[in-house]
């Protein structure tokens, strides 16, 4: 593997750490298997690319992208909470609708932002150009997002969110409004994913409607690899696992791509991903975790009650 490929894997990995954190919020904290991300990733890209092309400052454009993602997540939550549509289906409906919406926003399927200022070019002019400048910025953003989520999940609101995902009946009894918590959690999760899409478009110099294909799988792979490495005993470790898992997954891919490695060809990547996820799940099971359920029914190991006691 060359230095370029290594730097590229770190860049892409740190970017997808945001997707993994988004999936952590929906799948793990809220217990809501959210497929909106395949649409909110290109939504973030579309909104910020369109804004940048219209001469809006890249930082503001990125915030716009995040807000659009939050709205998308909110709508998915609404379909589920307000109209009683099953959570998986609600996400799929949003994802399908977002394809058309993204086309509308960009006015075409593929919108280049080459030659415009982006957050990356701004950062580069600040620290000096180099192979690692994108990586440094993405590291700051990924770790920042991780720490903010850690902090948020310890606030009263965040604990309410966790309780609602952990045990809705108990949460309801404590006076927590489960519906409102779902809407909030989904908005946060998809804002994170749209942020990733927005940054990806700026890093790549182009937004494309087909960008979201496979976002959910990549995010899940990162989440599960992270859990296999660090476990999920605490929120701090779980979110750190998202960041590390995303980078490790991308290193795997770069490794598989670098030519001549025991006969692996790029077309085997999907199989490799499936094997990596399966092995990671098996490994984390053999750590003697109890109460494993199916993937779509994972919870954080420590109940919100315990965390509550910790707080007081």
């Amino acid at each position: 593997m060359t230095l370029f490929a290594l730097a590229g894997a770190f860049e892409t990995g740190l970017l997808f750490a945001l997707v993994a954190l988004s999936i952590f919020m929906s799948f793990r904290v809220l217990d809501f298997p959210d497929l909106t991300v395949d649409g909110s990733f290109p939504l973030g890209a579309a909104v910020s690319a369109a804004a940048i092309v219209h001469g809006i400052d890249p930082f503001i454009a990125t915030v716009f992208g995040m807000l659009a993602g939050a709205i998308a997540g909110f709508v998915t939550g609404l379909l589920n909470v307000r109209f009683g549509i099953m959570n998986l289906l609600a996400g799929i409906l949003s994802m399908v609708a977002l394809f058309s919406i993204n086309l509308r926003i960009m006015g075409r399927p593929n919108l280049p932002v080459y030659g415009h200022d982006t957050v990356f070019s701004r950062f580069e002019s600040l620290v000096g150009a180099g192979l690692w400048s994108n990586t440094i910025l993405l590291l700051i953003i990924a770790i920042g997002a991780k720490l903010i989520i850690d902090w948020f999940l310890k606030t009263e609101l965040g604990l309410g969110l966790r309780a609602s995902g952990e045990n809705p009946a108990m949460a309801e009894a404590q006076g927590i409004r489960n519906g409102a918590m779902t809407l909030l959690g989904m908005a946060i999760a998809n804002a994170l994913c749209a942020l990733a899409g927005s940054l990806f478009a700026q890093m790549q110099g182009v937004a494309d409607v087909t960008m979201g294909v496979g976002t959910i799988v990549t995010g899940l792979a990162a989440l599960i690899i992270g859990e296999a490495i660090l476990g999920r005993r605490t929120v701090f470790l779980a979110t750190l696992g998202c960041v590390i898992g995303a980078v490790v997954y991308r290193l795997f891919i770069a490794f598989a791509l670098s030519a001549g490695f025991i006969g692996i060809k790029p077309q085997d990547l999907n199989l490799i991903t499936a094997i990596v996820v399966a092995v990671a799940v098996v490994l984390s099971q053999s750590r003697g975790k109890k109460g494993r359920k199916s993937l779509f029914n994972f919870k954080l190991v420590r109940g919100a009650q315990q965390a509550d006691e910790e707080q007081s």
Partner: protein
Amino acid sequence: MKTAVLATAAMAALAGFAAPVVAQDTKTVAITYIVEHPALDAVREGIVESLAEKGYTEGENLKVVARSAQGNMTTQTQIADEFAGIKPDVSVGISTPSAQALKNAMGDAPVVFAAVTDPVAAGLIESPEAPEANITGTSDKQPPKPALELIQKLVPDVKTIGVIYNPGEANSVVQVDEIKAGAEELGLTVVESPAAQSTMVPDAARNLVGKADAILLPTDNSVISVLEAIVTVGERAKLPVFTTDTDSVERGAVAALGFNYAEMGKVTGDMVAQILDGTAIADIPVVVPGNQDLFLNMKAAEAMGVEVPADVKDSAKKVIE
């Protein structure tokens, strides 16, 4: 220890006696494409073929690295990063997203694109006649007017042209806009029938029955991959199907006025060879292989109720009976 020394000596001796297979100057060409697809594969094979004609033979003085992104943009990004690391003499991106990823990753290294319908709109270059940076290539943009005029010849009372395309494919949207502009000049109207994925194409074709007098398909990956479904609808409804890529004619379209992608690959390969020979990219303008060949399928014409005039048949490069 002793054996190791002996072995090394033996190896050195062998190496000395072996014919110098490795050329003193091996060039590397790295090719990436967004997805495995007959047209894109034909381009890739054409490139390698043409390089061989120009004296760059794979395995002798040329190393070819080929990578498919399997339809995944993020993988495409990582492939571009990999290419940036192995520093090939020329890297080639077949399809718009592949070319864009290379533009972003390769810095000042030479990049050649292929099968990009509108390289200017894709942000790859600004001046196709004299590329200003390190990028040039071939575009598969085709003037739609000849194809429309062909339809007028074969379907004499044609008024409305039906177009099936995926609104998510950048290349197709460009082509449909062109078809609309060309149709307006000829006094024809265009009915659009979008299909966001391959599974929606059969319905999109059925939608056109009764609304259109003929179907003209752009070179859209999602649509062409299920061409047979459109042909079936066309045969049942006597709604003739035309395309702009000649490979489709063997698969049941009535006729196509277009170029084949293997040709495009050869033109692209020529460009790559020129760069390997040391020509500056600024001196290699973007090429639109404009040689539009007519392919006819007489069986399909009969099935869809098309009478082919003798002069049209005579002008065809290939007639499938």
